[in-house]
């Protein structure tokens, strides 16, 4: 593991339509770190996630992901880079025409030379990792509950053992037990594989359990990046209001 940050954003600006969402945003995500991104509705959490995961081009600024300058990637390099990044979309975004197992097999078929049988068995492992029962494999997304869609989408995001994982509200719609199981999995993977995670979430329990640092978005930029205990003690009015809405003990900063 190198000491260089996995994601480095320098004076990044993003747009939503004509509106500037973030201006001059600076952020570095270290290798093996779990960074939670929080902020009020409309503060551009999802847009930031889309930008950092190379789905949206920043309006200005420099973005380096896994050591490569996002603006200067060739098509082949971008494709290779995407194989190292896993994304869990907010609504799951499973391919509705494919079964759960085929959804997970698709990235494996694209990026590896494994045989069909091996791809399927490996996909079953992904489903197990994400906490799905084996009988969900043959089902289609339309037949799944909201929580199962989330887990199937997580299984697809994990398909290629990514170095960098983006999660957009992973625990929304999950029951507390499954949400805690997800956090355990993230902890395990980070510990064993050095996985770096950037997650947008509103789940303060999950933030307290797994996040190393929290990035707080607001007023068109990054208000603070700090461990959650430090952030909860912040005097910034917006951050105070956010944490005051559901007070809990995050320990001493």
């Amino acid at each position, binding site marked *: 593991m190198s000491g260089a940050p996995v994601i480095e954003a320098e004076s990044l600006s993003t747009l939503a339509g004509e509106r500037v969402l973030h201006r001059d945003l600076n952020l570095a995500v270290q290798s093996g770190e779990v960074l939670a991104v929080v902020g009020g509705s409309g503060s551009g959490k999802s847009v930031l996630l889309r930008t950092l995961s190379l789905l949206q081009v920043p309006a200005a600024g420099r973005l380096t992901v896994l050591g490569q300058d996002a603006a200067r990637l060739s098509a082949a390099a971008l494709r290779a880079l995407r194989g190292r990044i896993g994304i869990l979309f907010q609504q799951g975004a499973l391919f509705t025409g494919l079964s759960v197992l085929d959804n997970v097999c698709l990235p494996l078929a694209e990026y590896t030379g494994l045989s069909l049988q091996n791809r399927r068995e490996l996909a079953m492992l992904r489903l197990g990792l994400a906490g799905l029962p084996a009988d969900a*494999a043959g089902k289609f997304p339309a037949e799944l509950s909201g929580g199962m869609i989330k887990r199937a989408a997580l299984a697809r995001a994990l398909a290629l053992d990514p170095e960098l994982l983006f999660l957009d509200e992973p625990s929304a719609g999950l029951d507390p037990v499954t949400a805690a199981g997800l956090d355990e999995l993230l902890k395990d*993977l980070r510990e064993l594989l050095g996985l770096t995670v950037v997650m947008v979430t509103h789940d303060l329990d999950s933030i307290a359990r797994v996040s190393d640092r929290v990035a707080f978005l607001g007023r068109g930029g990054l208000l603070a990046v700090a461990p959650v205990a430090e952030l909860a003690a912040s005097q910034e009015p917006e951050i105070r209001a956010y944490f005051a809405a559901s007070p809990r003990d995050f320990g001493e900063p």
Partner: protein
Amino acid sequence: MPQAASLVADAASRTLFARGNWTVSGLDGALRDVDRWREPGAWRLDTDAVSDLDTAGAWALHRVGQLAQGRGAQVDYAALPAHHAALLELVRSRLPATPLVPVRTPGLLEALGRGVVGKLTDVLHFLDFIGRLAAQGALLLRRLRVTRLVQEVDAAGVRALPILGLLAFLMGVVLTYQAGEPLKSFGANILVVNLIGVTMLREMGPLLAAIIVAGRTGSAYTAEIGTMRITEELDALRSIGITPMEMLVLPKLLGLLIALPLLTLYASVLGIFGGMVVADGLYSVGYADFLHRLPGTFVPSTFWVGLIKAPVFALIIATVACHRGFQVSQSAESIGRQTTASVVQSIFMVIVADAVFSVVFQLLGL
């Protein structure tokens, strides 16, 4: 370039040496090694030379032991470094217990049976839809949404004018040109007026308008209703107390009933105009002669026979398109499939209806 994963069995020390990069992108070679290795007995697994291990690699290591067990051999994992063992433990604890169920492909007979039953169910659904439309539609007329109706007439009628006009004009040009040559050799140039007038009013105008509307508007109806079904907007409508029938189907149906006859007339006129241009340019039938002769070339019934088909075609297109929209199931592919089916079926039924009309009019002597 990292070294690809491999597995080498050393018989002398009874050790399996795993080497290289045991990660998801380079595993295929190692898995082939695993499948090739068939020696029985007790083995020790050594992963000291593995440079990188991820969960896929750990799964492959787990497979080594499983395959060995199936062949009466044992693999000892005790010598694994701690972090490899931990990853293997994670994979083992999360691996689903039940084996993978193979996907069943239906046989020829089953596929045939399912196909036939599917088609028959389709017909039943369609009849059911027409029945409900008739029963509920009559009741819902009081709650007709006039704004929606005007929007539908605008979308299906007014916005179709440019493309339909151009196509009808070109059709008139082509027909007159094709028919004009043989007529010219008989010196009967003037008869192109009779030909183009009757063809356009009776057949080409109604058919052309119906086919354009089926492709342009019918497909839009199916995709719109289908998407609303997937995004649960139809359920949301119901929850507010608005039936999809009154909000979507009825305005579309009535809108098309108004728009298609007008489009038919428009297409006929533009087609005749196209013929007139060619007749003037190639067959020395001037505009004045053409227009002077035109009213005498057909009886009033010819005009009405063409126009009376239009509402029937409109009914066919709107009901097929809306019905197909409601048939969309929960996948993006299904929208495409149903939209295709909507256009193909409505054009098919329009042409069949046109043939029936011909026979009926023949019998009636019109």
